[in-house]
Structure formats: structure tokens, C-alpha cells
């Protein structure tokens, strides 16, 4: 099949970027989207041009490295997939495909399609953990956890940290990412002790870092490759409110 690509090219953070057109005409529908980009890059290198920089590693939807904004949607047209799991069979012969990096103030472009997502790390540092040192854990079965809670915590815990929720949101809010962690740990007895502090600190850090606020457009849930549910944002808000009125905050 043939496709026309419009790809965002930007040599580095300081320079201005622009779209560049590329025509590819020997694409197989079985190719993954990234394999299609590999084919383009091979051609560019052989022509002596600079290949398109983009991030990827596991190529099976779990590491969260890949993340492209394809035809106006994070991770492209299919639901519940990361970019690396998208196949060319999702497009038609002759399609024009627009490929951009995530667009968000908190995720500056580094080069071409690569952005800096370190703001997520800083949010994690504000409390995305249980404070337990190695060696001080009790026997694992001393604290029973309701099966449903363990499962719900898992459903939140599967976030791959890709940033699609931010890219999907018109406010560039990171609420889904943050809620997933807060909710996962709040659902488990192990994370309860710090639940309120965690909610206050992580939310505050998110705001400091230039992410917008959540106005419940629900775009994030639709585009999240792991279908993290908005319920987690509701749980985060409850934890946050409870913490705001609580005596124990620090």
C-alpha cells in the first residue's frame, strides 16, 4: 500500500519545527506503524538524510516509550493500543498520515517526535510510593486484601506512563496518570497510611509542573492505551478532599 506521511521535524529544542512530507509506496498492511517508520528511516539514511527520531523499546505496548500523535490522536486511530501495537492494516491505501510529537507545555520537544516526559518522574517523586525500606516488610499474607481491591489496584497499576492522557487533554492535564498511582496505592492497605499526604503532594506537584487542570472532558480515558478508568480520578479527588480537611496533613 501507499501512504503519504506528514511528519513533524524539529532538529532540537531550540529550533522551530515544521511538517515534512514523505511518500512511501511499498508498505505492507502487516507492518507495525513503527516498522513503517523504520522503513522510512532506512531510506532517509541511505539518501544521506537525517532519520526521524522517535522513541520505542519493548514494541509490545508495555514500556511506555513510544508515543506518537497520529492523525490528531495519541497512539493513532485504534483504541487500547500503544503506537508500537498499531499496524498499517488500520490505514487505507493512499491515506495521508500526520505524525506529531505529544504537545504539552510540560513535555517539551527534544527532537522530531521525541519529547521530555521527565515531569512524570517529578510527580512520582512527590509521593508515588509506599515508604518501606528493604527488610522491614511483614510476611506478605499477614494483611489480607480484598480480591476486588487488589484487582482494582491492578487496573490502575497498569499505567505505562506514556503520556497519552496529557496529549489527549485540551488542558494538558496529567490527572489520569496521577490518579492511577494515587488510586492504586489508596486501594491497598499497604498504601493507606500515606494516602492523604500522597494525594496532596502529587497533585500539588502536578500543578507546579505546568500541567493543566481536569475539566472532565474524558478524552484521556478514551485515548489511554491501558483504558485506565476515570473512576480513578474520582477516587483521587476524594482522597484529595479528605486530605484537605484532615488534621494529619503535613
Amino acid at each position, binding site marked *: 500500500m501507499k501512504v503519504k506521511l506528514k511528519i513533524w521535524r524539529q532538529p532540537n529544542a531550540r529550533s522551530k519545527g515544521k511538517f515534512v512530507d514523505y511518500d512511501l509506496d511499498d508498505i505492507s498492511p*502487516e507492518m507495525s506503524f513503527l516498522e513503517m517508520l523504520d*522503513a522510512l528511516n532506512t531510506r532517509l539514511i541511505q539518501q*544521506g538524510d537525517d532519520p526521524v527520531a522517535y522513541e520505542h523499546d519493548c514494541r509490545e505496548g508495555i*514500556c511506555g516509550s513510544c508515543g506518537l500523535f497520529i492523525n490528531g490522536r495519541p497512539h493513532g486511530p485504534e483504541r487500547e493500543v500503544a503506537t508500537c501495537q498499531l499496524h498499517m492494516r488500520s490505514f487505507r491505501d493512499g491515506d495521508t498520515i500526520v505524525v506529531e510529537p505529544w504537545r504539552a507545555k510540560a513535555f517539551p520537544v527534544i527532537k522530531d517526535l521525541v519529547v521530555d516526559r521527565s515531569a512524570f518522574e517529578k510527580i512520582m517523586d*512527590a509521593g508515588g510510593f*509506599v515508604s518501606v525500606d528493604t527488610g522491614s516488610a*511483614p510476611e506478605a499474607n499477614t*494483611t489480607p486484601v480484598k480480591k476486588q481491591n487488589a484487582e482494582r489496584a491492578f487496573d490502575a497499576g497498569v499505567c505505562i506512563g506514556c503520556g497519552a492522557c496529557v496529549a489527549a487533554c485540551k488542558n494538558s492535564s496529567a490527572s489520569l496518570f496521577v490518579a492511577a498511582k494515587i488510586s*492504586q496505592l489508596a486501594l491497598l492497605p499497604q498504601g493507606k497510611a500515606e494516602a492523604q499526604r500522597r494525594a496532596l503532594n502529587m497533585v500539588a506537584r502536578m500543578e507546579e509542573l505546568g500541567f493543566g487542570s481536569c475539566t472532565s472532558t474524558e478524552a484521556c480515558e478514551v485515548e489511554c492505551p491501558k483504558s485506565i478508568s476515570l473512576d480513578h480520578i474520582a477516587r483521587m479527588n476524594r482522597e484529595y478532599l479528605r486530605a484537605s480537611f484532615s488534621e494529619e496533613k503535613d
Partner: protein
Amino acid sequence: MATLDAKIPEGPLKDKWTNYLNSMKLVSPANKKKLDVIVVGTGIAGSPAAATLAQLGYNVKVFCYQDSPRRAHSVAAQGGINASKNYRNDGDGVYRHFYDMIKGGDYRARESNVYRAAEVSNGIIDQLTAQGVPFAREYGGQITTRSFGGVQVSRTFYAQGQTGQQVLLGSYSALRRMIAKGKVQMYERRQMLELVIKDGHARGIIARNLLTGELERHTAHAVVLATGGYGTIYYLSTLGVTSSGSAAMIAYRNGAFFGNPSFIQIHPTCIPQLSDFQSKLTLMSESLRNDGRIWVPKEQGDKRNPNDIPEEERDYYLERRYPAFGNLVPRDVASRAAKERCDAGYGVGKTGQAVYLDFKHAIKEQGAKAIGSKYGNLFELYEKITGESPYETPMRIYPAGHYTMGGLWVDYELMTTIPGLFAIGEANFSDHGANRLGASSLMQGAGDGYFILPNTIGNYLSDKIKTSRLSTEEPEFEEAEKRVREKLEKLININGSQTAASFHKRLGKIMWDHCGMLRSEEGLKQARTEVRELKQEFWNDLQVPGTLSELNQELEKAVRVADFLDMSQLLIEDALNRHESCGGHFRQEYQTEAGEALRDDENYMYVAAWEYQGEDQMPRLHKEQLTFEFVEVKERTYK
């Protein structure tokens, strides 16, 4: 010259680790502050090691290749993590766990290390649970387990088919906590390119900042490599595409011995290669073999839809050949059996290079819902790639390169033959012999990282408290950086016409064909010649665009491929040297009449530890003789 001393503590097996802990030297909390440790790698070995070392009080610097430590390839582990808890009351315990691993590894691992791995496993589950890892649970709120290949107990803890992600994120959060406290300095997007050695001791690294191209010098009192496996040597594998053997090769070139390099696990259940441009093979977790049944048609070249093939015309060949373990035989056995059927013309699918993994019976017995709750996300993963639903049509699977049992040789303290250089997780050779059992790698990595290394490194560092920080202006740093710069310049100035990936692909094919599931003297010698030629071609015709001082992903790739070329030579020599079949190393010349691996315990009951002798020189072989005091060495059978 370095010698091999495994430093195995005295005493009965079950007391060795305790004896070690009781007698090792300690570093006082005040002194720990004066000591710097570099940890390269943030997978299930590196992240907990770094977090724990920081909790103990050391200054820790951590490096990883990706933009976040959370993306280390441990994140992709699916099926589970073992522990000897015996929650099921099914006769499990530390000794049985140890025995299963020794036997599973075909008697090519060191008893003392394996026992310790089984011994510390329970603490890992406790630690991870406390960190908020949502392990699967029963209605009563207790943690549940499942079975994996090569064992008859249920000791595998899991979080659906995403156990690696959940446990890694647990360790990653512990690491982030220490970063937030300022106890760990985190360097993401760095590629380690050289090791700095002074007076024979590891004292630092040279890393390239992948965004700016700057070469950085980092000093420390000890260096820990937690850099993962090198299964990507086959190009197509279940690993992340940036996984590499580069760090191990750097250590090797600097004098660290490389243990059993050719011991690579080919995983039996992966989605088969469908096309030529494919860049990656996806694993279908071994846990599926709990409920899925493997078969091929009894008739060669049977092209019928699998659902139209009646029971009596199916060959459930694992159940037929191995009645005691059936579909749960270990990986090496299952992989070879699949290859045997496909080579004999019974393979299915477009290419004939696949067998069926069928859930029909399990769905009939347990219902689609129950099967979905165990394997739902794996079924979806399969459907996303192939467009077919395993609820309706059996999966098609084929073996793929997956895990490297081989790695840097380490002693009981996890130290390489370079003092001060440690290797943990998949990067070392230690616990899995010639074949690894499922769900034991997360366990080994986490055990190394949480409990073993943080203790053993103290024993080494205890007499370094007076050693001041090595200045990065010292000649050792100068020279190491110079070597790196020269190598990078050489790569970028070849100005040839072929991409790094194209070389990698060709190398992968050579290695898969001749140093993969089936090896022979003839094939290996042919591979030896082909790799040598390919290497020459690489250094004459590689093309790397761009410059050294920017984000240059092609340059990063070129470095990895250059190392894979050297590493392939080492693997081939190791495979040639071992005139026996054991575990994943199967030499055509050495098999029983029934086609099973034929070991030669008299001559090969040793770890082959290779010492570098210079570029393209035959490496020198050292042997760590393995003695089995606590198990009886037997033919490994799963019949």
C-alpha cells in the same frame, strides 16, 4: 592474571548464607556516606539494588538507557515470580525449589548460589507486597499462586500477565523515593561506554549523554552492572530493541571473565515471525501452558482450519513424549520438541514454522470467563498482533530467543573477576545453569538487588573507607574517554552504505541458524567464518548519519551492533568448546536415541569462563569445576 575463586562459604548448604552474613565485614553508617556506588541498569535487579544501597547510606548514582528507569525491559515480564512460600501446602520449600532449579539448569549451576536464590525468595514477595504490588488474590484476601514449567508445585506469584510491570514498578517506586530524598542521583538517557579501572579495581564509568552526545566521567568506589540480557543478539527476540550485551562486553574487554556465553534460552511460546520486516517477537507467557494444550496435526502439511481437525487426528506431542510433565516441560525441552515437529513437516500456519496452543478444553471445563480472568490480557495482546481471538482459534506459536543464562562470571558475592565490579540480574551467569525455569529470573534479579548485593558489596567496600574519591581528571579517566571517543569517531566516519540494523539482521540470522536451538560443529564453524566476514563488512561499509554531539539513535545502534559482532564470536567459541548437550545448549552430535540432550558430566561439569585476549584473538578458557554435594546428579528427565 585473575583466577577463579567462587568464594563459596563453608558449612552445610542451608547455613552458607547465614554464615556469610554473620561473618562478613560491615561498613558503619558514618562511613557509608563516604562511599560512592554506581549502578548501571534499572530493571528488577538494578532498581532495588540502588534503592537498598541508598537506604543503607551509600551515595548512589544510577544510569539507564531509557528516558525513565521504569522502562527497563523487566517491565515486559509476564507470567510471574517464584518463591518458596509453600502457601499451597503442596510440599514446596527452599530445598525443593533449589533442587528444581539445579535440575532445571541441567546441573550446570553453582549449588550455593542457587540455594541462596531460593532462600531469599520469600522476602521478595513480602517486600514487593509492602510496596503496593497488587499480586493476584483469593476471595479470602490471601495471595494466590500458579504453576510454571519444570516443576510440580505451585510457587509462582503473579499479577495477571503483567507481573514484570507490577514488580518493576514496585521497585521503581522505591528507587524514586530515594531519588526524591536526594540519596540517589539518577542519570537517564545515558549509554555506558567504558569502565574505568585503577590499580586493577573498578573505579568509574564513561557514559554518553544521549541527548547532547557529551561524554561524562563518573567516579565511584564500586560499579554494579545490572544491564540485563543479550538475547537481541538474534535480532528478533522477545527483548526490547535496545537491550544489548554492550555493558557486559565492556566489562569483558576490561578483563572480567564471561561465563557460559552461549547458554541462551529459546522460549517455546512466542508469536511466530510473520514477515521479513519484522523487528520484534512477542512472548506468550509460559503460564498459558497451565491450561493450554500444544499440538500439531498428525498428518504432515495438514492445511485444514484447526477447529476442523478432530481430536484423534491431533498429536499432543508434549503429552505423548513427556507424560509426567506434559505441557509443562521446561522451556528448552518444549522448544526443541516444537522445532522437531516443524522440521519434520508437521508445522502449521503460512510458514509451517508454528504449532498450536489450544484453550478449547480449558474453556469447556472452566468457562471462558475463568480463562479470561487468568489470561485475558495475553489473549488481547495476541489478538492485537495477529487479528485472531484465542477464545475461538488456537494460538499459533513458535520458539524465539528470550533469555541469557550466560553472562559475566561472578563469585558468591556477585563480584566479577575485576575487583569492585559486580554483576546482578540477567547480566550475570550465576543461577540458572544451562536452562532457566520460568518465573525464576525476576526472582533472581530481585533477590540479587534487594538482599544479596547490598550485603556482599559491603564486604568489599569495608576496606575502602580510606580510599578517597578518584578524581575524574586522573589519567585512567582520560584514557577511557579517549578510547570511547576514538571508537565513536571510527563508527561515524566509515561513511559506508548499509545501516546498523541491516547488519544486525544478518548477524541475527547467522546466530539463529547456527548458534540457536540446534548447534553442530559444522554449523558453528561456518558461523565463525560468516561472522568474521560480516564484521569486516561492518567496519568498512556501515553508515551512521548525523554527528556525535546530538541525539543520534543510529549511532547508539551502531555501538550495540559492533558489540554484538564481537560477542557472537565469543558465543560461537563457547558453543564449539562444549562437546555435550545440556539445557538450552543442544549439539546435534550429542543426543540420546530418544533425541534428548546428552550431557558429558565427566568432561564438562564446569562453568566455561572466558578471558579476553585482544581483538579477534581466541579467548582463554578457565574452568570453574562444579561439585554437587547436596544433590545427586542424574539424567534430567521429564517423562
